[in-house]
């Protein structure tokens, strides 16, 4: 079982600011972390590996600048087998469409080294852009079926199908998917810590790099800023909303009276 986990280094959104002129995120001085949902995807892959350490191989790949190596090392420290950084100036400015296209090409390249992937795991979205598009787009580029918003995955005995629990607004849905499949994960179990020894080993581990030149037949019109159909018109910090008021009265009449009072107070009535 060969699993590719796509990961992204993101700024810690609790400390985010927006450049008022360029309308883009100010990344300087903001700590970078592994995108939380990607961490959940990795955790699910690691749990499959825990059950069958000899037969599950986990490869992590990230498209981003050189600094993303730190995050890839963290992935190795918790148990990923190998890590790839897809990086090139030509990839800069890529939107989700261009990113997923580059990832699909890079995945083919990685498969030359690691063998073909049975499953591809992604976080449901990145906590910086919040688009939730890269995973599904990657599946489309690769012609794979996709299961989104997963919280759990188990494999059948001969590893030909996966039983996936999805979390949706109405509750949970369990679906069975033929392998190969691309799965995007939302919050699952608690994340594991790396042991000191694995952390130290990961520091010296090799992070394999994939550049533009490595991706044969890549279509230049589909990559980078120029290949990105998305245009950011405006970025802004939404006004902070105050907490809502919850009226808890057993008697509906009393509850309504309170409600009316609150409306009056707020000058809405």
């Amino acid at each position, binding site marked *: 079982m060969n699993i590719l986990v796509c990961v992204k280094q993101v700024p810690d959104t609790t400390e985010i600011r927006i450049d008022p002129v360029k309308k883009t995120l100010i990344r300087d001085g903001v700590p970078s972390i592994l995108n939380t949902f990607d961490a959940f995807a990795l955790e699910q892959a690691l749990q499959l590996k825990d059950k069958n350490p000899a037969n599950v191989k986990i490869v992590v790949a990230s498209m981003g600048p050189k600094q993303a190596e730190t995050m890839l090392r963290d992935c190795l420290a918790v148990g990923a087998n190998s890590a790839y950084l897809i990086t090139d100036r030509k990839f800069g400015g890529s939107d989700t469409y261009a990113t997923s296209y580059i990832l699909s090409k890079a995945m083919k390249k990685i498969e030359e080294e690691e063998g073909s992937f049975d499953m591809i795991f992604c976080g449901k979205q990145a906590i910086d852009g919040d688009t939730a598009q890269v995973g599904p787009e990657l599946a489309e580029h690769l012609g794979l079926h996709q299961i989104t918003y997963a919280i759990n995955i188990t494999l059948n005995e001969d590893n030909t199908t996966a039983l996936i629990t999805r979390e949706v607004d109405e509750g949970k849905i369990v679906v069975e998917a033929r392998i190969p499949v691309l799965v995007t994960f939302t919050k699952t179990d608690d994340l594991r*810590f790396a042991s000191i020894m694995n*952390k*130290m080993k990961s*520091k010296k581990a090799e992070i394999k790099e994939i550049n533009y030149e490595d991706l044969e037949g890549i279509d230049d019109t589909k990559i980078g800023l120029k290949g990105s159909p998305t245009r950011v018109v405006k970025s802004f910090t939404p006004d902070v909303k105050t907490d809502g008021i919850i009226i808890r009265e057993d008697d509906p009449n009393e509850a309504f009276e309170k409600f009316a009072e609150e409306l009056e107070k707020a000058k809405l009535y």
Partner: protein
Amino acid sequence: MDFKFTDETQLLQEMVSEFTEKEIAPIAAEIDEEERFPEEVVAKMAELGFLGIPFPEEYGGAGMTNLDYVVAVEEISKACASTGVIVSAHTSLAAWPIYHFGTEEQKQKYLVPLASGEKLGAFGLTEPGAGSDAAGQETKAEDKGDHYLLNGNKIFITNGSYADIYVVFAMTDKEQGNRGISAFILEKGMPGFSFGTKEKKMGIRASATYELVFDDVKVPKENLLGELNKGFGVAMATLDGGRLGIGAQALGIAEGAFNEALAYVKEREQFGRPLSKFQYTQFRLADMYSRIEGAKLLLYRAACMKDEGVPYSAEAAMAKLVCSETAREITWQAVQLFGGYGYTREYPVERMMRDAKITEIYEGTSEVMKMVIWGKLNRM
């Protein structure tokens, strides 16, 4: 002279800090209140290698340095001094003497499970009548041919009943005083080895402090640690290292309280402005910070000296003396800055102030530290 951490130390500090923030800080107040030994946290730390930091990988350790170990205890103690001393007593007082004085068989049998975190360690030296005067040991070990027969009791034993492996001291030749003490390795479950009362303490209340009772405990000959009648040296060398751990614990407590105070004075408003806008507060925090940083240098230097393999007894004593006094002073100041809130259990500085006091007492009181330091001065 280089005041920078290596990349490895930096990485370790970050990971222990992250673990502490996520796993220890959220329960620190609760385990203090309930006087509950945090078994679940200890199990997690064991899995991650926190219980064998300065020991070689071949013995199940993480293969890192004493400085790394000190930094880890410091990070843990920023949030929870009880958890800090659990790690410190285990590492410095139980695993280290076996690593340093043990035979290869003893290392395989006892150090490997200790360093890998599979088992927890404790150290038994103190007795009701033998505190700072460790030579006044009443616990006896009689040579019975194929074993030693141990009788007596030990008090104030950190990790008490939760440990599995114990380094214990006993008189093997009463007339010889210091030169008649020997060290032994005991295992939980040996017939005649039981636990007495658990202490109710002012601070570090989640650390389990017990009495150990030995009633005709048959200790196999091969469990003698170091040479016969050379136990006092084993104890003193062990405590030198232990003082690095307690210094780190004290420093961590001081930093934890300082961080709380720094955040609080920026938020708390009185007389129409945050406390941090008053120069008195600024000066006080400047003093606190300077004092912490000074203590830190003493501690890190002593740890580096141990790593270099040069004598470091006096330096460890200075580090422990200054770090523990710093912990007492900084936590006291932090409570004062918090005012009435600081005296309540709503904020952690109240716990930190209680936790700080013990660092001036155990593993050698401040007065004993000064005796050790004078020992160096007297030779100058």
